[in-house]
């Protein structure tokens, strides 16, 4: 057995993998977090509705419901410690017309069964008062006050950074290929960057969690179906929606939301379409039309003039039955130590409500390890606080002046539309989880998401990245290898000077 051994290797640095890494970093363990992409947060966590669900929606008795409600309670502390933008604004499920009112009653019952606190039934008048833009035909709403919105990118990056601060090793562009087995025991993994040995491996591979678990012969019948959800993002200068607005749900999906986000843009979506290709994040005519129709139902005054971006995300939808055979539900979370294999913490099918559940899921992983006899010793000097880095545009004039005085690079605006400075970009490039691609910087600073959609800032960001990373601008990418911006120098110019 090689000496170079980890205690835990986590496959996948989305919100779930990163949150597990962070939570485990509290203990005296050697932890390695691997991620196949050039940055954390590039799978499902990169494109979703960013809602911290209250928990009335998941089928009562399922692991989904349990994780949702438990996780929801943890977000105040989590957001405070990791400095994640998070607002408990409450979720509205809006009934349009009298026919939809009975569905609210069913949701209420589900919420009660799931232990969701702070639910209130509102009249149509009250909804109109709180959201002036709402469809005037609103007949009532279920308001779940514990629901909220968060910045999923900030949450993912913050969790991964806090893990690094506390000794976790992170390897980007490192892809799982196979398990190294000793009989039925997993002793390590093979990756494109070599073999790594560990006592435990955590499968947090999201869209690819089925492929990973099958390599160990676990749950051959488990399948991830990528379920695409498309979105419109609206210009905050054109319209402001103050709340999280759900329509009454269908059996398959929570429906097309019109929701505020922590960035101030309003987001419309998602729809739900099963597809084959786990990398297909294209926006389609039919999908966007479905979003638009759904959104108009809640806010009829929307017009295409407000649109600033369109994007799509992929849910990692699984097919695992609920552990409790009495509950007829076939898409529950898998969070387990499999019976037929040792050394694996297996997660699968973490679709919505994955973001809100992530801290509870991480805690569940700790519990599983303890159950299996792991003697987890707490670190004396575990640092739970990940300090926030300044967003220039959120500061007061006085704060901005001081920031520039201390570091002149904050005096240079790189993204005009969103007022993002060179100082912020440099801070992200040199952060514990370094931002090395355009999209990585975009997720962290919100640069390039405004009216010009990167038209002004792209050449400047490419220059800054090349300079800071010490590489040619030809190597700078949008989202990792094969997405380079530039093909060649004109006339083989010497840019090294």
């Amino acid at each position, binding site marked *: 057995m090689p000496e170079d051994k980890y205690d835990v290797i986590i496959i996948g640095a989305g919100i779930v993998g990163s949150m597990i890494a962070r939570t485990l970093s509290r203990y005296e363990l050697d932890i390695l977090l691997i991620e196949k992409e050039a940055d954390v947060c590039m799978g499902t966590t990169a494109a979703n509705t960013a809602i911290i669900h209250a928990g009335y929606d998941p089928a009562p008795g399922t692991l989904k419901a349990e994780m949702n409600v438990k996780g929801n309670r943890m977000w105040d502390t989590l957001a405070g410690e990791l400095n994640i933008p998070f607002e408990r604004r409450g979720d509205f499920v809006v009934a349009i017309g009298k026919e939809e009112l009975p569905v609210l009653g069913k949701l209420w019952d589900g919420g009660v069964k799931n232990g969701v606190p702070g639910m209130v039934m509102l009249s149509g008048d009250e909804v109109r008062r709180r959201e002036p833009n709402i469809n005037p035909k609103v007949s009532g709403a279920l308001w779940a006050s514990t629901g909220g919105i968060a910045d999923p990118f900030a949450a993912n990056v913050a969790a991964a950074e806090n893990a690094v601060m506390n000794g976790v090793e992170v390897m980007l562009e490192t892809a799982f290929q196979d398990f190294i087995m000793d009989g039925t025991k997993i002793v390590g993994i093979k990756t494109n960057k070599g073999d790594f040995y560990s006592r435990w491996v955590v499968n947090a591979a999201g869209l690819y969690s089925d492929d990973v678990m099958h390599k160990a012969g676990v749950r051959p019948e488990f399948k991830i179906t990528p379920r695409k959800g498309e979105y419109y993002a609206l210009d905050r200068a054109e319209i402001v929606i103050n709340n999280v607005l759900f329509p009454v749900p269908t059996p398959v999906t929570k429906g097309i939301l019109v929701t505020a986000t922590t960035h101030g843009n309003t987001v419309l979506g998602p729809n739900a379409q099963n597809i084959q290709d786990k990398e297909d*994040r294209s*926006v*389609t005519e039919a999908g966007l039309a479905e979003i638009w129709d759904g959104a108009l139902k809640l806010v009829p005054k929307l017009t295409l003039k407000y649109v600033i971006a369109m994007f799509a995300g992929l849910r990692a939808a699984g097919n695992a039955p609920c552990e409790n055979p009495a509950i007829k539900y076939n898409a529950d979370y898998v969070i387990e130590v499999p019976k037929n294999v040792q050394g694996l913490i297996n997660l699968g099918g973490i679709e919505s409500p994955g973001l809100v559940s992530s801290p509870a899921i991480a805690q569940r992983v700790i519990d599983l390890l303890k159950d299996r006899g792991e003697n987890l010793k707490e670190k004396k000097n575990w640092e739970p606080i990940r300090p926030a880095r300044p967003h220039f545009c959120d500061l007061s*004039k006085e704060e901005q002046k001081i920031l520039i005085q201390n570091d002149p690079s904050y005096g*240079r605006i790189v993204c*005009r539309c969103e007022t993002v400075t060179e100082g912020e970009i440099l801070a992200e490039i040199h952060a514990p989880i370094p931002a090395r691609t355009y999209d990585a910087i975009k997720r962290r600073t919100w640069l390039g998401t405004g009216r010009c959609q990167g*038209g002004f800032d792209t050449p400047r960001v490419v220059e800054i990245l090349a300079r800071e990373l010490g590489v040619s601008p030809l190597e700078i990418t949008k*989202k990792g290898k094969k*997405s380079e*911006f530039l093909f060649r120098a004109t006339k083989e110019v010497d840019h090294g000077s």
Partner: protein
Amino acid sequence: MVPDRKYDVVVIGSGPGGLAAAVAAKKEGADKVLIIERDLELGGILVQCIHNGFGLEIFKEDLPGPAYAQRFIEEANSLGVESLTDTMVLDVTSTRFISVISKQSGYIEVEAKSIVLGMGCRERTRSQIGMLGTRPSGIYTAGTAQRFVNVEGFMPGNRFVILGSGDIGMIMARRLTLEGAKVERVLEIMPFLTGLTRNYVQCLQDYDVPLQLSHTVKRVLGNRRVEAIESTQVDENLKPIHGTEEIISADTLLLSVGLIPENELSKKAGVVLDPVTNGPFVDEKYQTNIPGIFAAGNVVHVYDIVDWVTQAGYIAGKNAAKFAIEEKNKETRYVKLTPGENVRYIVPHKLDKESLAQSSQTLQFRVIKPVEEKVWVEARSADHLIHRKLALYARPSEIITFEIPQKVYSEIEKLDALTITIVKA
């Protein structure tokens, strides 16, 4: 608010509109003129427009963009126009206070007697035209690509599809071909060319670049980098005609689908925009609805010939200077009445010198502490006494009146401020 710097005319943006305005403002007699430019050097968009076609009207010459800009930059320098480059304007108020930041100067507040807005345009994006498909690298607006090729020195791709037959698209088709790239297709959704006809000849026809009218991009293909563009023909309502799709292999898509006047700062200042042009409402002086705030160039509406931008810049700059000079005159027209020793306040607060030229003016004031003996009520400048009267006492409960006689007008005329004080006799 105490400004860090004061100017008579401040011009935001140093493209052709801003440069012309700065030059004209100086020529009209404005004393301190400042250009604020966000890029590293002056010239605005002209820096990257290296093709000819500029100056045919104004100079009767056929110049490339940078050479055209150079004329104005040299004139601005020789006239003593100041400039701040690599500096971004964060805010403009309707009272003409400008907040700017830069690496070199930090955060500065500038007070301007008049402003010329010359921010130009931004380019329409793929989201604004509802383009479907994936979001790989390799999608650029034509202006951003032009910046890479002509200034930074990089080719953003090898095989291009260009959407839009506007001038920028056609000019880039020629430029890219000259640099050894292949422009597979130019697609134009309208049934007619949207740029200048001459550019069709000298950019597309000359370089064998195929143009398809009534065509557009249906969707983009490729996850990391553009791999192909699916094009489609459109009908008279600009709707895709099913069955006419074609997959064009390409690694780069250039969007030349329109310019939008960049008026975020204008809105902050309270400038009202015309929803048709997306630029400010202006009069023949190119003054917006905010007195003292003018606008010139693409920020007002999208031009096709730069020479007309220069003309507009001249008009806006000249009138901005006139406005600033008038404001200055208004200020020097008044003398401020400042409470001195033991004076609590004076009404009126300021005195129009013209009024004093016509007739004596009476002030009213109150003291802070009572003085129960004879006092001199004095009107003083910084160096000497201008006029005084004797009073038997001074009490806070009783208003004291004080006449400034017409005969002292000639002394008051030169002053900014006059101090009223109480001194024991």
